Structures are given as structure tokens and as C-alpha cells.
């Protein structure tokens, strides 16, 4: 089940959230562990984490009274599918258009 692409894009649009994702790419972290390097308040970090969680970019698990966050394994698949399709599709399309134009010019 993928999050809507819009939610993914708006979650990624914020530099702090991108930085949080970069930190989580290096491994799991709790809210408190994220507060320190980012020098912003815990409520602010928590708000960013909620946006990322809603977009399906991170997962949180319960470990006693800790709730560590990690990157969702297939978070960017939908975005990836679209983007990869776009570039590859574009190359294939124009090669096909070349052939179509050549065929029409021979008429």
C-alpha cells in the first residue's frame, strides 16, 4: 500500500525532513537522538516525523518506552517507478519518433 505521491513529494520538499531521512538512512533513531544533531525542539521533530510517517517514508516501532524510527523499505518505489519510467520512456519514445519521421519522409 503506497502513500499518495503528493504526500511523498510534499514530505520531501522540506529540507529538515530530507535531512532526517538522510540520518535515518544511516540507521534507526529515536526522537531524542534526532533532536540533538538538528538543534530544533522535540515537538518540532515529532511534527516532521508525523509528516514522514503519513507519507509512508518512515516506520516506527515500539521498544519499551522508546519509539525508534527507520526508513520504510519501499518508501520511494512509487516515485521511482514514475521517474524511471519517465526517463527510460523518453529515450525509447524519441528513438521511435525518429523511425516514424524517417518512414513519413520516404513517402
Amino acid at each position, binding site marked *: 500500500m503506497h502513500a499518495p505521491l503528493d504526500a511523498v*513529494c510534499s514530505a*520531501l520538499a522540506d529540507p529538515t525532513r530530507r535531512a532526517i531521512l*538522510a540520518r535515518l538512512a544511516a540507521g534507526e533513531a529515536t526522537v531524542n537522538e534526532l533532536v540533538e544533531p538538528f538543534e530544533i525542539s522535540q515537538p518540532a521533530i515529532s511534527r516532521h516525523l508525523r509528516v514522514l510517517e503519513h507519507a509512508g517514508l518512515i516506520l516506527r516501532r515500539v521498544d519499551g518506552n522508546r519509539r525508534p524510527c527507520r526508513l520504510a523499505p519501499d518508501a520511494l518505489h512509487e516515485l521511482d517507478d514514475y521517474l524511471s519510467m519517465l526517463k527510460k520512456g523518453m529515450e525509447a519514445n524519441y528513438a521511435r*519518433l525518429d523511425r516514424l519521421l524517417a518512414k513519413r519522409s520516404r513517402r
Partner: protein
Amino acid sequence: MSKLSLTTEGDTIVVVKRRFDAPPEEVYRAHTDPELVQQWMLGPEGWTMPVCICEARPGGSIRYEWSDGKGGGFYLTGEFIELDPPHRILHVERMHLPDPTPDNRIETIFTADGSGTAMVMRMTLPNAATRQAMLATGMEHGMEASYVRLEAQVLPAGA
């Protein structure tokens, strides 16, 4: 070696350039006549476009539906804004996967270049993150690539 060049302007613009060995009239027609669009704008090999609506007039609708022939598919909708045949097309489009992607505003210019055509397609995305992600497309698919891409492309340097 790809003849396609893909560069950026500012935070939200992607510029695609490509040359074709046919005059602007032919290249413009191939972008605006649904019978021709249906023959080339197909994406990866094996895909077809069973539905192609391309009303090339200001306010005209665009709807392209693609199928992989195995029950898979998706579609794109859009609207033409301005047309100046055979030199310029301005339109907006979005993919439906099935959720719509952010609107992509696209200006396509065809200029005579010798006996051929130089095409410049300027795509304006709604925000920097969407564009950054869009530029990450050259890489291979898959999990590992996703994370490499996440680190190298989507995330700012030094984050």
C-alpha cells in the same frame, strides 16, 4: 550514446533537448496528431497506448492511457494552453498512478536546424523536491538504487 540532453534551470525547471532529422512541421504534427502520438509515445518496449485523446487547441484535453498488455497500466491527463504551429506547444500534464503526480507545465519549442528540428522542452515542476527526484531517473531500478538515489539526489549534500 544518447542524443537526449537533460539539464536544469533554477530550482524547479528541467530542460530536455533533442534533435530530429525532420522539419518542424513534421515534428510538431507527431506531437499533436493523436494517430501519430499513439505510434511513438509508448514508454518502455512492449507498452501500447489504447486510448489517445489529444485535442490540439487552447483548452483542449489530453488523455493518454498506457497498457503493458498484461493487465497493468496507468494514464496521463492534461490540457493544452497555447499552440503556435509548428513552433510551440504549451501544456500541463500529470500522471495518475492512480494518485495524480504534481502538475508538470511543459513548453515545447521546435526550431528549424538545417534540414531537421531542434527541440527544447522546458518542464516546470511545482517544487524543488519533485524536480530533484525527477533527475534521479538515470539510475537502475531496485532497492539499493533507491537508497543511493535517496542519498545522492533527493537529499541535499552534507545532510
